[in-house]
């Protein structure tokens, strides 16, 4: 696969990723693991690293795969490829959105849309909470109620929740606090 073909693969991934990073992972898997360009094991190792480092996971994966195949130019080209379709689409939407948004019908649609999207964001937030404080697999293994949550994580969750309501720190400070707590206690 040439550098240009690699670029096209990531343009394709960027174009058909509708609804978030996990869709991008699936498409990359189909295109790269499916075609035998990367082994499945290598791919999951990359997913693990992309999940463990800052930044959107889809972008991390694109950079990683590109770098692995073509060094630094590959990393940059794959990332540009992933971002390009959305950059074009969003610029076009943003260009007309302002005027468009004044129309009564669009206003009405966005009234519903904002509410629906807030519900959607709430589901995703709920899932993050479940993963962070519950340990459902250890509960289903042992069947003991005391195993349903990771209690240290749960206690920390309650403390941070109260703290962030009381103290107006920037989220970054809480994130650093979380990393330190994780290393020491979890």
């Amino acid at each position, binding site marked *: 696969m040439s550098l240009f073909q690699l670029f096209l693969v990531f343009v394709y991934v*960027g*174009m*058909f*990723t509708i*609804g*978030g*990073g996990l869709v991008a992972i699936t498409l990359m898997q189909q295109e790269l693991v499916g075609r035998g360009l990367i082994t499945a094991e290598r791919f999951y*190792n990359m997913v693990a*690293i992309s*999940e*463990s*480092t*800052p*930044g*959107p*996971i889809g*972008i*991390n994966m694109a*950079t990683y795969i590109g*770098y692995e195949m073509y060094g630094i130019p590959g*990393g940059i080209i794959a*990332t540009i490829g992933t971002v390009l379709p*959305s*950059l074009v*689409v*969003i*610029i076009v*939407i*943003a260009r007309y959105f302002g005027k468009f948004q004044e129309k009564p*019908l669009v206003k*009405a*649609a966005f009234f*519903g849309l*904002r*509410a629906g*999207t*807030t*519900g*959607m*964001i*709430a*589901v995703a*937030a709920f899932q*993050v*909470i479940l993963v962070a*404080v519950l340990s459902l697999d250890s509960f289903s293994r042992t069947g003991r109620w005391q195993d349903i949550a990771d209690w240290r*994580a749960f206690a920390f*969750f309650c403390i*941070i*929740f109260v703290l962030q309501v009381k103290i107006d720190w920037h989220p970054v400070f*809480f*994130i650093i*606090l*979380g*990393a*330190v707590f*994780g*290393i020491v*206690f*979890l």
Partner: protein
Amino acid sequence: MNDIRLYGELFWAFFKIGAVTFGGGLAMLPVLDRDLVQAKKWLTAEQLVDYFAIGQSTPGIIAVNVATFVGYNKKGVPGAVVATTGIVFPSLVIIMVLAAFLEGFADIPQVQSALRGINVVVAALLIKAVIGLGKKTLAVPAAFFMGAASFILIAVFNVPGVAVVVLSALYGIALKYRRGNEA
């Protein structure tokens, strides 16, 4: 000169967001809300939700879409490119450095522990951010109903996000049409 400062500010704002958030679009929400809505006032909470809705139903990664949108509104096409570059830049650097020097990064036990701690914090921060958004977008009963319906459709019935986007837009239109007829 002012232009250069604004480009710099755009790049730096999104660079920071890309550098401190783990996971993806939603994990970025508390920082987006704090930095862009509350501190810089580059967009309103309603706009942030609009961008998420548009990001949900257009190609690309939602966090990147938000960057492109805000960048374009501030400074046209160059602004969009600068903001988008800013948000992906930390990924580029960090991933390449790790790939070159520290292959086993994800297997380091401390890294996994730190991430678990970070996830707990993000969960707590998200509750506050979502409640903050909800106060604006679900303020009236008709909106609250749609928000709750959307929550149930996705959480219980696993309906795809795009379908909920379409449905809630139609709901908004239907609501207006009905009110129009009564008046």
